[in-house]
């Protein structure tokens, strides 16, 4: 049908109208121009991908990494850490004295330290904070971090109720003394953990009791903090914003004017946000993208060793895993190099020890390796030649593609090298946690990220009835070394030697099979300066700065 050009048909009119409307919508929307990164660079606001929506901002209640990042910006501990080496540095305490037997620490507070409402931070603030953090009613899951303090154990267990008996004393307004049970070489490192951050008594008591969980003192307008930044906005599931704290005693050295923390649970979307210049720094990076960035934009990839171990728990209460030879055979039959090179591919290192190598100068020796022949020999010695007599073993993992891939690889390795049939059981996170805690598993994937820079953070997991042990394994000699001898060691060398002995027992008896040591995987925009890799993957926001640079983004095609 021919159309009269002078009088277009209705169909053509409507089509034209349709195209016009769509074009107008797109044109009005497009050309928004400034991206988050552009705006952030101009205004000194850091756009930070922060993983999950925070549960709360109370540093004595939360346990997650997402929360700890925000708390890092809001609070300053007694002792800070060097951004790279994590060596102790002055925080609220300007300096500290340690007595000869290294059990009494006297902290001299900076007289210029202030809360974000302008009031001074005093020694009494710290005493009250530590009392609160240790109070049984608060339900602080990190209260075990206080154990090195004299009488903290009995107080936490409820054996004593008088907090004055705990080794924390206010000498004067600006002097705090802490007495320890044993010389604890990593104690200064513990103090920079969020469970030791000072919290504001007046603000907390204005919104409930000291131990009220979920009290509104952490809401914008109520929150008082003493760090480089202070809370200004909390839009649920949208963002949390902090601004520079003018009362911070080193405010003149803080380059950022603020930080916007964005919840980014979906790491694929997060990577797209980074590519579209919506973020300066990502919380994570999808596994399949790491090699791309490594090859095409290595300067934007932060891929460094991280104080964490990925391992398999073995339920030593059941046959055949009650036999150390079987457990060892399973450990020897895993080709870890293949797992990190072909599956995880994110810079992880094959792990043969449970404590990551060079944890504060500690590297354990390991008898574990990839040795399928020895594995077969051990299995035969245990009474299961060529896997005969072992029906099947089941590997439990929580829902995540990377866990599944590793489990499939190990399933094949154990079948191929040891002729053991493996079935896989995938459970949702909460169900998986329940199964593991109840001991309803045979082999279960697990991981542990160190809380502080010391081998103890990995080795105290495996003591008898330890809440995080969950393998049913225990060894009295191991417990004695970790709980009694190492804490009383007179030197770091001696202590490390004792811990190595303990770790040797663990690696010989293999209730857990280390698989790989973690690596950090973040994307960092070139305009963000001052990001230094460290083993705990802690961001030191007060050292960050933004440069207004025009940068290229990688134009990946998938």
């Amino acid at each position, binding site marked *: 049908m021919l159309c009269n050009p002078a009088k277009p*048909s209705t169909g053509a009119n*409507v089509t034209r109208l349709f195209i016009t409307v769509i074009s107008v919508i*797109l044109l009005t929307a497009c050309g928004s121009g400034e*991206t988050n990164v552009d705006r952030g660079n101009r205004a000194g606001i850091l756009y930070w991908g922060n993983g999950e929506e925070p549960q709360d901002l109370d540093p004595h209640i939360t346990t997650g990494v997402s929360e700890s990042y925000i708390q890092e910006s809001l609070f300053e501990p007694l002792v800070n850490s060097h951004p790279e080496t994590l060596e102790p540095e002055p925080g609220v305490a300007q300096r500290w004295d340690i007595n000869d037997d290294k059990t009494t620490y006297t902290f001299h507070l900076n007289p210029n330290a202030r809360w974000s409402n302008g009031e001074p931070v005093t020694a009494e603030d710290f005493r009250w904070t530590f009392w609160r953090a240790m109070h049984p009613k608060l339900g602080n*899951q990190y209260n075990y971090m206080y154990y090195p303090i004299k009488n903290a154990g009995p107080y936490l267990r409820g054996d004593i109720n008088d907090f004055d008996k705990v080794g924390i004393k206010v000498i004067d307004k600006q002097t705090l003394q802490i007495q320890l049970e044993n010389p604890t070489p990593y104690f200064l490192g513990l103090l920079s953990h969020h469970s030791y951050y000072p919290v504001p008594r007046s603000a907390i008591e204005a919104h409930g009791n000291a131990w009220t969980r*979920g009290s509104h003192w952490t809401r914008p307008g109520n929150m008082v903090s003493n760090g480089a930044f202070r809370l200004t906005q909390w839009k649920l*599931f*949208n963002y949390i914003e902090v601004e520079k704290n003018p009362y911070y005693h080193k405010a003149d050295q803080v380059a950022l004017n603020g930080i916007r923390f*964005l919840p980014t649970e979906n790491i694929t979307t997060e990577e797209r946000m980074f590519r579209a210049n919506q973020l300066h720094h990502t919380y994570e990076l999808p596994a399949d993208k790491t090699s791309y960035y490594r090859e095409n934009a290595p300067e934007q990839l932060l891929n460094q060793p991280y104080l964490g171990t990925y391992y398999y728990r073995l339920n030593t209460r059941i046959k055949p895993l009650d036999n150390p030879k079987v457990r060892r055979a399973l450990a020897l039959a895993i080709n870890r190099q293949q797992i990190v090179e072909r599956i995880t591919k994110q810079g992880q290192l094959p792990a043969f020890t449970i404590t990551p190598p060079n944890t504060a100068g500690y590297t354990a020796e390991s008898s574990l390796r990839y040795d399928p022949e020895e594995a077969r020999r051990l299995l035969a010695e245990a009474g299961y030649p060529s896997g005969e007599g072992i029906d099947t073993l089941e590997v439990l993992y929580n829902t995540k593609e990377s866990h599944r891939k590793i489990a499939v690889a190990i399933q094949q390795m154990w079948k191929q090298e040891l002729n053991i049939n493996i079935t896989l059981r995938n459970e949702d996170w909460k169900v998986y946690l329940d199964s593991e805690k109840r001991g309803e598993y045979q082999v279960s994937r697990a991981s542990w990220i160190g809380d502080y820079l010391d081998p103890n953070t990995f080795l105290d997991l495996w003591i008898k009835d330890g809440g995080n042990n969950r393998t049913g394994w225990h060894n009295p000699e191991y417990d004695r070394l970790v709980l009694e001898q190492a804490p009383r060691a007179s030197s770091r060398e001696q202590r490390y030697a004792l811990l190595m002995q303990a770790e040797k027992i663990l690696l010989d008896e293999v209730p857990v099979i280390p698989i790989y040591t973690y690596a950090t995987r973040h994307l960092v925009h070139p305009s963000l300066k001052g990001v230094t890799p460290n083993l705990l993957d802690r961001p030191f926001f007060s050292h960050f700065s933004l440069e207004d640079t025009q940068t290229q983004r990688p134009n990946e095609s998938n």
Partner: protein
Amino acid sequence: MLRFTLVRLLQAIPVLFAVITLTFFLVRAAPGDPLSSDKAMPPEVYAELSTLYELDKPVWQQYINYLGGLLQGEFGPSFKYLGRTVNELIGAGLATTAELGLYAMLVALLIGICAGVVAALRPNSASDYLPMSAAMLGICMPSFLLGPLLVLIFGIWLEWLPVSGWGNIPGDKILPAITLGAAYAAYVARLSRGGMLEVLSQDYIRTARAKGLPEWLIVLKHGLRGGLMPVVAFLGPAFAGLLSGSFVVETVFQIPGMGRLYVQAAFNRDYTLIMGTTVFFATLIILFNLLSDVLAVWLNPKLRQQYQGGKS
């Protein structure tokens, strides 16, 4: 009409009650402890929290207490987000989801009606096949595929639009609205094509043409009114679907809405939040279906007469 509306409202109550009861017991029967975390919790802390969230009470008692709270409009405290009530969380997410649903509906109507009308005006021609094929594609393509595809084209390659967020960057509402609205646009297109075809063959349209009225006036004034009846009937379920089905889009685009809240609640075994969001969505679906029915009766003189005559 009033009687019809009242009867339908009364019918909705047992449906909602069944949803509440079933969800309550199913959630509690599902494995997974809401209080568990990867770090071991001291037993006294666990006991304290169990008491706080009434998990130490028998399930039937928890159920009675929950119903009691619901009657007062209280959904209870969230297990995961400390110090937040479910009412507060729903309140925070609802405005966003409603806004997203509204924009998606506008996208669906705008694209769908235009495409449907164009197709109906020249049936069995290229301008019919093309939009209808696109509509079929829209129906078949899931939002978890369409969303990233649009992001790739308009966000990453062309750099025209933001790839995530809601209300923080100009233009960040466009891609989610299109992604969510696309499938509904396709349905609207097919419905309006069918409706228009039927109406355009009616006698009164022929009379209008014979009177010499311009074609655009016939289509816009006489054709659309009757032709869009099926679309109107579809609006209620569509809006309910848009609101309750937004969780994929909200997750893909990191939008702080109800859908994302729902997903998080399920992962975290946040009992009260799962209940709150389920009850809320169920109410919405029931309500919008009810509205759609009422609207359909009101627009259709035959049905209206039937109900007004008390023959319901």
